[in-house]
């Protein structure tokens, strides 16, 4: 039934982990990328993610359709994004402080409404088997890909195109780079930022639905282990480039699978260190790619952390 692959099991497991674990990172970081391009930072996406996980699970359980669950999670996320955007549009409101408040609010509301959803089983999103060509069961299992992951890849490419080649992307970048220039050109600043933050919230909600409806596929209060927060950091790590966000999400997903995979082939000591691998990797990449001359290249100038 199973063939013994020896050490080959590790790269296969890391590949599988990339495809399974990366999706929440990918969605949150793409959404946050758009939000930050408009000159705002939404730290509350962790709370939105948790609420989205609950709303997605609840939506799927109540309607019987996991896709309606995903939609419900997206809409819930959109509302959280709108709330953040509306609060930050008031004069002298700090977006980081609002984000932290919304992070706690989102988790708290999700725990409150999610209590009756822990026990029941909701219908799950189906997976696509891209590994049917292989006779090795491990490869087939690793290539069991979720539709949201493929959608995320398409969105990453689309966003790159929108940023670089379209009028909407140009307006978004202008609002994020220089509010004065946008104002002089007659483009509305606040509506653009509200839309960008709402989009970010929508994506984070969908990311939450992925957690509760596909992998690991369950709603409980520990469902997110900080993916929402890490994804916000990934955007900076990826220098506000959607394709780099995809790469960063894949690296983090694969690194998360490394610890269990190494233990399964018999490398059993020091697993706490392997679990820290994604974070060590981040430090190394940040160190290697840093440069005193081109620091924060691509950073939106209006962002409160870079201004």
């Amino acid at each position: 039934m199973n063939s013994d692959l020896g050490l080959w099991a590790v790269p296969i497991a890391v590949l599988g982990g990339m495809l399974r674990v990366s999706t929440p990172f990918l969605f949150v970081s793409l959404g946050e990328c758009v939000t930050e391009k408009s000159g705002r930072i939404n730290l509350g996406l962790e709370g939105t993610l948790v609420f989205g996980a609950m709303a997605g699970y609840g939506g799927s359980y109540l309607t019987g359709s996991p896709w309606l669950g995903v939609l419900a999670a997206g809409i819930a996320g959109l509302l959280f994004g709108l709330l953040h955007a509306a609060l930050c549009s008031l004069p002298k409101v700090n977006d980081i402080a609002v984000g932290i408040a919304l992070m706690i609010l989102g988790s708290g509301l999700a725990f409150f409404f999610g209590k009756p959803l822990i026990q029941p089983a909701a219908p799950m999103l189906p997976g696509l088997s891209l590994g049917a060509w292989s006779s090795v069961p491990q490869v087939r299992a690793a290539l069991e890909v979720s539709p949201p992951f493929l959608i995320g890849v398409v969105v990453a490419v689309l966003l790159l195109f929108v940023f670089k080649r379209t009028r909407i992307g140009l307006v978004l970048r202008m609002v994020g780079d220089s509010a004065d220039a946008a104002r002089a050109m007659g483009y509305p600043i606040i509506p653009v930022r509200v839309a960008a933050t709402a989009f970010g919230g929508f994506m984070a909600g969908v990311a939450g639905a992925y957690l509760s409806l596909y992998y690991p596929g369950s709603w409980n209060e520990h469902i997110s282990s900080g993916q929402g927060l890490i994804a916000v950091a990934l955007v900076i790590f990826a220098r506000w480039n959607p394709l780099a966000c995809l790469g960063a999400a894949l690296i983090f997903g694969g690194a998360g699978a490394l610890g269990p995979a190494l233990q399964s082939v018999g490398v059993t000591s020091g697993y706490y260190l392997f679990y820290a691998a994604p974070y060590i990797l981040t430090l190394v990449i940040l160190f290697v790619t840093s440069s005193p001359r081109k620091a924060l290249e691509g950073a939106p100038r209006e962002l409160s952390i870079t201004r």
Partner: protein
Amino acid sequence: MTMFPLNRRRFLMAGAALGAAPLVMRSRPAFAASLTAGFIYVGPRDDYGYNQAHAEGAAAIKDMEGLTVVEEENVAESDAVVKTMESMIQLDGAELLFPTSFGYYNPFVVDTAKNYPDVQFRHCGGLWTDKDPKNAGSYFGYIGTAQYICGIIAGHMTKSKKLGFVAAKPIPQVLMNINAYTLGAKSVDPSIQTQVIFTGDWAMPVKEAEAVNALVDQGADVLTCHVDSPKVFVQTAAGRGAYVTGYHTSQAPLAPEKYLTGAEWHWETVYKMFAEKALAGEELPNFVRGGLAEDFVKISDYGPAVTEEARKQADSVKAEVMKGGFAVIKGPLKDNKGNEVVAAGKEYPETAIELEKMDYLIEGVIGSTS
């Protein structure tokens, strides 16, 4: 002129008097005919796991005459539990506390017990010794023996001769379960191995799912776990087509076809005993332990896949255990580094205190304690 003109000074005085009233009126009952018991859980009460097992025990004694139960969930193993205990004592008047998570005991429960000598603390899983405060104590169930019987079922059901164990942290109780499970399986076929993956914490859904995938990829076909909430574990393993044996409470509803059996807690027995003694004003024991024979733990009903042969062997061992004195850990026994850990002829029945300090994985387990 009115008799009691309501001015600011009077209003403040009345307010202060009202505010202070609970301080004066709160008095301890002369005899314990009524009692408030507080239960503290580290996770959600309905997690299909560790916390649900405790909450079911608490729910079972809720209706006892004179007893009030207060509960708080999601309390971290940190200063947070001290705050929760103090608020249960000071605001709810709790006189008997059950902090149920392993990491609460030292230093949090021990220190709080020193500060509140009138309140009784009974902690789940800790190792109470004579040096600890007399108003503290610990209780636990010998679930390792139940895991041994689950291991027998697993040993009959595995075709690949490889079992998988998803564990949280390498503490003695977890190591005991891994070893007992492996010994149960090895009693069926000595060539069976158990592969362990430690996730590093009690509730890590994504890592637990990754661990299940890694184990199945390595050929394990019967899996079990020791994490707080086995819901994700059971669903992922059954989704990959592996058999599972459960832990903490029955997860059979999550995977009716793939669920073989499981080692469950039965805390109702313990909580009823403590509550009855406390209500009657009797002294509470400091060190409480029990196993299958004492009804502290139980075994899930066998699933439909379990073969007749497996049932027969498991039932006969269970009957042996019920007689008392059954030893899962007995010599000669080597750990998985080749050192002898139990000498030939030596036996540790489940009550042996040495087992609560276990720091090795036996021969046949693939894994490491650090």
